[in-house]
């Protein structure tokens, strides 16, 4: 069984969803205050912001809107410090609502008198305050205090929401008994800490997809499967995303070898049902998954070692790329059941 420590960013994303989505885990105070959650990771291009700098979109994590007030609230989840450049872009949008009106979104807004609020949702208020000493944080800060199980507005920078309604919503601490991470099981920052966990999730998607296909159909590409089920990964760095895909493809190619490109990753070819049990590659499915998990954890350990070694020899980022192999000999060489697949 893998020990999993979801990142603070992932926890905050889920918390933000609960605030604006019907549930009975955490009081959905934003939903009840007229601000349902409408958008996640909305890409807002800011062409007018510093025209000389390369074009990049601002991507606030959570977007809520109140059609009654023609008002929008964006919350940015911060596990650690803040990013001055990002803050400036958010301020630009706040002062230029047309940037938001110009793009497709679900925020239910009209172009006139649009009121835009930004806020930070954080787990480490001390880090945010430290950051405040160096760079002013121009937005109100909502602090999730895990230890005391509450969510509260912190007025250390004396900035309140433009829309009083939102300030009222956060005027008293909100009890947060727990934050299930089911809505967003891992965020774009998770890869470095929880790689085996992410790869396991992807393999589940492949199992599922392959079982609904005809014998020689092709399972959709890993990229496609990933972005449909975990669209938040779209905001992940390209290099990390590519690494996830490469690792998963490597694992799948070795576990389910197949000369035919057309049938790649169709696990049906390796699945048999006998005596009420499901077997995959001559192992019970349970055994297979246990072994796979163990191999991925070993693999992750080796990957980190490799990374440390290569970094210590001052390799460039490009050179750090070689990916250590899963120990497939160990995977298949143990007590696999002698079972006739035919």
């Amino acid at each position: 069984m893998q020990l999993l420590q979801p990142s603070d960013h992932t926890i905050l994303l889920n918390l933000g969803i609960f605030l604006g989505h019907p549930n009975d885990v955490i009081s959905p105070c934003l939903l009840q205050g007229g601000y349902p959650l409408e958008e996640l990771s909305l890409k807002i291009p800011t062409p007018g912001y510093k025209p000389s700098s390369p074009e990049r979109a601002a991507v606030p994590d959570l977007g809520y809107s109140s059609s009654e007030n023609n008002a929008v609230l964006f919350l940015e989840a911060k596990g650690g410090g803040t990013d001055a450049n990002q803050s400036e872009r958010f301020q630009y949008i706040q002062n230029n609502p047309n940037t938001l009106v110009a793009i497709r979104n679900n925020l239910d807004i009209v172009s006139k008198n649009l009121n835009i609020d930004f806020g930070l949702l954080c787990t480490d208020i001390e880090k945010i305050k430290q950051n405040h000493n160096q760079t002013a944080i121009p937005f109100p800060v909502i602090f999730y205090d895990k230890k005391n199980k509450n969510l509260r507005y912190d007025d250390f920078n004396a900035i309140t929401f433009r829309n009083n309604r939102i300030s009222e919503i956060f005027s008293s601490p909100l009890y947060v008994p727990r934050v299930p991470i089911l809505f967003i099981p891992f965020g774009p920052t998770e890869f470095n800490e929880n790689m085996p966990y992410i790869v396991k999730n992807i393999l589940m998607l492949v199992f599922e997809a392959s079982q609904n296909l005809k014998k020689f159909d092709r399972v959709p590409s890993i990229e496609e499967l990933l972005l449909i089920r975990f669209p938040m990964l779209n905001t992940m760095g390209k290099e990390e995303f590519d690494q996830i895909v490469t690792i998963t493809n490597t694992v799948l190619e070795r576990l389910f070898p197949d000369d035919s490109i057309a049938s790649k990753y169709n696990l049906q070819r390796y699945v048999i049902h006998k005596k009420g049990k499901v077997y995959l590659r001559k192992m019970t499915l349970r055994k297979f998954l246990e072994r796979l998990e163990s191999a991925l954890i070993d693999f992750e350990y080796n990957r980190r070692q490799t990374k440390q070694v290569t970094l210590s020899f001052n390799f460039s980022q490009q050179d750090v790329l070689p990916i250590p192999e899963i120990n497939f000999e160990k995977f298949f060489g143990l007590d696999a059941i002698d079972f006739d697949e035919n």
Partner: protein
Amino acid sequence: MGYEILPKITSRKQMYSELDLAINNISQEKEKKEEETAQQRKYLKALIIESNSPINKITPDPNIVFLPTSDDDIKLLQLTRKNNISYSYLDMLDPRFWILYSLDTSEDIKREVKHLIVKNNSRLDYAWFSSTMLQKISSGYSKTSFSMKFQNTFENENIPMKKLAIRLWAEDASKIIDNLLSNEYIGKGACVSNIEIEHRSRQDSFVKTRLSMEGSINISNGTSIDEFLDYQHTIVQGHYKPIVEQIERDFTTNFSLNEGFSLNGSLLSIKLQQKISNIERVVNDILKGIHPFRFVGFANKISDDDYLLNVLDLHTFSHFDLEIYPDEIFINLPKGSCGNSALRLFALCQERIDPKATLRGDGYATIAA
């Protein structure tokens, strides 16, 4: 002269007529053999099977053959055992919820149905009637008999008993059930596993049926098949199916992609009144990949009180996530998942973890499951 097995039929009309005879015959036989124990009697059985697959995709054991009739949605299930052949009627009028009628012994037909469901990649499942659903369905009826069965499979220390099994007959057992459910000690293990009721849509006709947790209905007395069809329609089309559809419509999640993405649907949660004392045991056992849970997958330990499970449901090979806390189990079913899987988990939670568990939707809805 009574029926020992159901005869061959060629059409729906003939099926109803034979079932009508069988019900009447049971009633006559019952009068003759009052001294016989309930186990010895051959009741007419109707087993509800939830299907995610057309019949031609199913590969039954060699001793089972599906024979055609003139109606596409009726098949004859020919079962051969020790050179004896018997027939049961498979009614697929509702392609999602099939009804298998049989006069074979309970033990025989249930074994075969279990093989059909569990032993191959059939995409079939039982219909799972939780204790609360059985109580709800039977409310308003006089209950002539009921069973309670609780197995503290995971050795939850917060439940004071290892197991509980009760079978009781009465002219009307409603108050006895209520008393047991509210009893301070027995109530903690009081999980209703079947309830017998008398259904009457008209003054002069009736049917006496016992509905069990796994969706099998025993017909022990009655006057006509019409009464039974009326009852069956009430529980399957009027109760069970709408809940499955509600789960699949409102309590499955997906993301719609735009410039950003938006979340649709809500989580399901199973709220427990008695906390689980040993979550790790629960996690390991439900992922064994065998009947009755039929789940396999990965468990991830977030803390002693928080486990995240990536689950593969062997019913449809769909993938979903569970997060288990001592007092609550959250379910995130992706859009397109089978709602029956959630009902299976819930019914089994009531039978093995906490009979007082409730299935909840999005904070506003306790699902009538």
